């Protein structure tokens, strides 16, 4: 559970840093949508996150369908990263 919390903080840090958001990590709800009504991210932000995940976690998001699943929320993104780590 501790590892899960650390990973969520890393993911939130990546989102804030890569997208230059002027918010703190605790303002991002683990289960809130990252796009549209949630954090309000758009497709260009998605590309930036895809690049960030590749460079910082060594994890690829191969297409938009996978992206929709992975970028549903911080919770979903953590789950995706955990499932694909080291593959």
């Amino acid at each position: 559970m501790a590892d899960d919390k650390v990973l969520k903080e890393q993911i939130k840090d990546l989102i804030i840093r890569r997208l230059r958001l002027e918010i703190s990590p605790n303002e991002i709800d683990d289960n809130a949508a990252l796009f549209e009504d949630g954090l309000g991210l758009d497709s260009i932000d998605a590309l930036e996150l895809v690049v960030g995940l590749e460079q910082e976690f060594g994890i690829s998001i191969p297409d938009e369908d996978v992206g929709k699943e992975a970028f549903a929320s911080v919770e979903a993104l953590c789950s995706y990263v955990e499932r694909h780590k080291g593959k």
Partner: protein
Amino acid sequence: MPDDHSWSKPPRSRAARNLLPHGFPFLLVDRVVELDPGRQIVALKRVSAGEELSGRGAFPHSFSFSLIAEAMAQAASIAAASVSEGEAPPSGAYAAIKEMRILREPRAGEELWLKMKLLHQFGRLFEFRGEAKIGGELVGEGELILRLS
């Protein structure tokens, strides 16, 4: 500029240029010199005094700063769209300029060499980095994102 190419493909000038929906006077790629489909491109724009869009920059008969960025995007769009084999090829539109540095305006009679390389792709978004040169002189460089539709 052609002396530092690390790839070599037969020029597909006319066919590749047809991947752009633009027409005169907004077609800013005259020739595709090198093309590695989906990955990188070298293209050429000859700046003439008679162009409809010249003379609107800082100097008469010069090619305005914003048109250099547009020419770079058009070259990148050809590279991105060139992997498509359909009868109606997709066309690229600016989604974002991440960074762009334009150093001077090309003048009538000068050749603008555009070299663009794909950095990342996700879905219909293509991020390119590239440069514009006149002879060996860098006149523009930057990163841009295109959306193919």
